């Protein structure tokens, strides 16, 4: 066990530091700036291009696909160093690198790889994902959006939800039902779709936070050329698994609880501060212990990955705890500050961050595997307990109620 860099890691870190020192400052966002979406995407693309030119785009992507073919530790080191700058990193970049390229790399044809990989790495092509539907969230295989083959194209009709930044993405990754007579998981097929195709209408979803960074996407007679099908017909579920099983080793953020300790320390209380109250201390210390545990647990997972082992459902533990901890501690911090946290009079920024966290935590507890789904995964895949009793097993999709 060693928390320090090996000599090779130290060398890589030094190289990265030096490169970032030279290239990152020019791309940094002004602190506290709120950009309009188009500006943000443009900056995100520019930084991705810089990464590409520097050889740091797609660190984990294999060399044969044009990536760096680096190790997980290199990716972590790069990430740690890159985070020291306030750089534009949006989902429009992340979905391409983390979801689209792995599935295209694994299930795509040579032409598809040629067409999509390099432009995505260069930041020229941005992506959104079109997976969830109103009646297919946790139960993703319940998608109803239909694709019917007509000649050398598929005609797609249906509705997708929770696609982030769909309105600023060039292409989407899409899963649809091509065979309603097959059982649920078997009738699905995977596509990439040009978001400028006729018949695609994107509507923002109004979120409880007030923001609208997620969309509903309506597909009406959208024609997708056969050449944009990824994998075979019926291979859609396997493609989804490739996407969803991608490394989720970056869940959670450190330093949150320290910030809350500071927030408590900045709150006067009976001649001292709220952080001097033993009950507050105990709550925050317990949360801090969990946050630290998550950090070291993540390090254990990364060590597994760096050895070629698959952490599988273990990775779900990170997200499960992070989302709950965020909800609990941001709610608690509001209580610690007291009425000023309902409507701050001055020094608004940290309180706004708490509001954001308290609201966003509800989305985190649902998206990318709801708490309950993750607990099922952990009990079934790590502890080997039986799966849920299912009423949809072996039943053709169009016979399900």
């Amino acid at each position, binding site marked *: 066990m060693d928390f320090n860099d090996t000599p090779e890691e130290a060398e890589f870190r030094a190289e990265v530091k030096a490169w970032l020192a030279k290239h990152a400052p020019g791309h940094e966002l002004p602190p506290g700036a709120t950009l309009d979406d188009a500006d943000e995407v443009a900056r995100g693309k520019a930084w991705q291009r810089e990464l590409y030119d520097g050889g740091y785009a797609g660190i984990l992507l294999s060399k044969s696909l044009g990536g760096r073919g680096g190790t997980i530790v290199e990716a972590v080191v790069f990430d740690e160093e890159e985070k020291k700058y306030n750089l534009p990193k949006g989902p429009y970049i992340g979905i391409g690198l983390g979801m689209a390229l792995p599935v295209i790399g694994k299930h795509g044809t040579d032409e598809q790889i040629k067409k999509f990989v390099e432009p995505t790495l260069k930041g020229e092509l941005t992506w959104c994902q079109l997976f969830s539907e109103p009646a297919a969230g946790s139960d993703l295989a319940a998608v109803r959006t239909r694709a019917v083959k007509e000649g050398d194209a598929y005609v797609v009709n249906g509705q997708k939800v929770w696609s982030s930044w769909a309105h600023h993405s060039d292409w989407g990754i899409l899963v649809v039902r091509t065979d309603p007579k097959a059982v649920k998981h078997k009738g699905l097929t995977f596509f990439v779709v040009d978001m400028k195709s006729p018949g695609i209408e994107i509507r923002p979803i109004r979120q409880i936070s007030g923001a609208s960074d997620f969309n509903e996407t309506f597909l009406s007679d959208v024609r997708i050329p056969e050449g944009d099908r990824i994998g075979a017909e019926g291979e859609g579920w396997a493609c989804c698994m490739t996407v969803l099983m991608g490394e989720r080793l970056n869940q959670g953020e450190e330093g949150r609880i320290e910030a809350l300790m500071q927030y408590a320390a900045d709150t006067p209380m009976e001649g001292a501060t709220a952080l001097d109250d033993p009950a507050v201390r105990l709550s925050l210390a317990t949360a801090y212990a969990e946050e630290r545990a998550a950090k070291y647990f993540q390090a254990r997972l990364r060590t597994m990955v760096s050895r070629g082992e698959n952490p599988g459902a273990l990775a779900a533990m990170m997200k499960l705890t992070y989302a709950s901890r965020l909800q609990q501690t941001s709610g608690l911090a509001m209580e610690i500050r*007291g009425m000023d*946290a309902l409507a701050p009079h001055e020094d608004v920024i940290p309180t706004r961050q708490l509001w954001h966290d308290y609201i966003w935590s509800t989305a985190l507890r649902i998206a990318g595997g709801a708490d*309950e789904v993750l607990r099922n995964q952990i009990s079934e895949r790590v502890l080997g307990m039986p799966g849920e009793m299912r009423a949809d097993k072996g039943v053709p999709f169009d016979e399900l109620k």
Partner: protein
Amino acid sequence: MNFDLAEEQKMLAEQARGLLGKQSSPDRLRELIDAGAEWDEPLWASLSELGFPGARIPEEYGGLGLGDLDLGVISEEVGRAVAAVPFYASIVCAADAIQRFGSDEQKEAWLPRLACGEVVGTLAHAEGRQGWWPKSSSVSCRAGKLSGVKTPVGDAGIASLAVVYCAYEGKPALALVELDGETVERRKLDGFDQLRAHYALTFKDTPASLLEASVGDEDGLRTLTDRMSVQASFEAVGGAEACVYMARDYAMDRQIFGRSLASYQAIKHKLADILVATEFARSNAFFAGWASDNAPAELAVAAAAVRLSAINAYEQAARENLQVHGGIGYTFEADCHFHYRRERTLAITLGPRQYWADRLVTHVPGKQMETA
């Protein structure tokens, strides 16, 4: 022994629920938020017509002269609907303060107008980061003039009258202030609850009249907060119950993996636990409402107990209701968020859990401990 609401109280609740269900639907709440409204003025008018604001105000001052438990059943319905009305600020807080500490003249001047809903009042106790009831207020009252800053103050944009917690000759006191004059600056704050606006009030030599009986009466002020706690806890119970049934109904409708979402034990047990918490909180609320009228010596403990249990119930209920709804719960079109935000308002407006833990432990019979 009879530990249930009286028939009249049940009718009162039904009446309030009927009216609020009709006039304060979730769509109406969305409309108000979209309009940036500070309150639902027509709803307040309807409630006033039926006499709800005056429920606990004595008949001699134009009210119905009902008790704390009666007011509680109304508070519960207001909480169930997340109604955008100043019931808590104007009635639970301001009117009660005047009733308890005001002179006959002050009562005559204000209670009838509060009772009929014509005037909205509020109670300004917090002072920003210094806390909800700072030990010594930085707002001073001298020779009939008030100076200093109170923040945040709920519903202060629509109130024309504030009861202000201040210092008078070094002692804690409450003073009555009219808000419409030029010596009061009202700054609307950006707030977490989209259905209850908060303001910072800056007073500069603002004419004020002391509620004489409040001067130096720390115990009396604590009893006032006990009474606020009881009513706000009823609100929380109403909110919590609304969440339980909203989640239940959604889960019954939603199919997942070929089964009703409501058939999953994770969902069933989650809602069972929250229902237990809610029913227990309601039981404490019933007692606290009863004790408030009938056994004042037990009020401190009862108010603390109900604060602790009601906020715990509503917190769980508001969070898990949204969770049961999944992605749809995260949209503005769903109804979960009203409770998710309002719950924090109640939790925090009612003061820190620690205050109530101290109050409870200090007053549990047979214990002789100091307040920490």
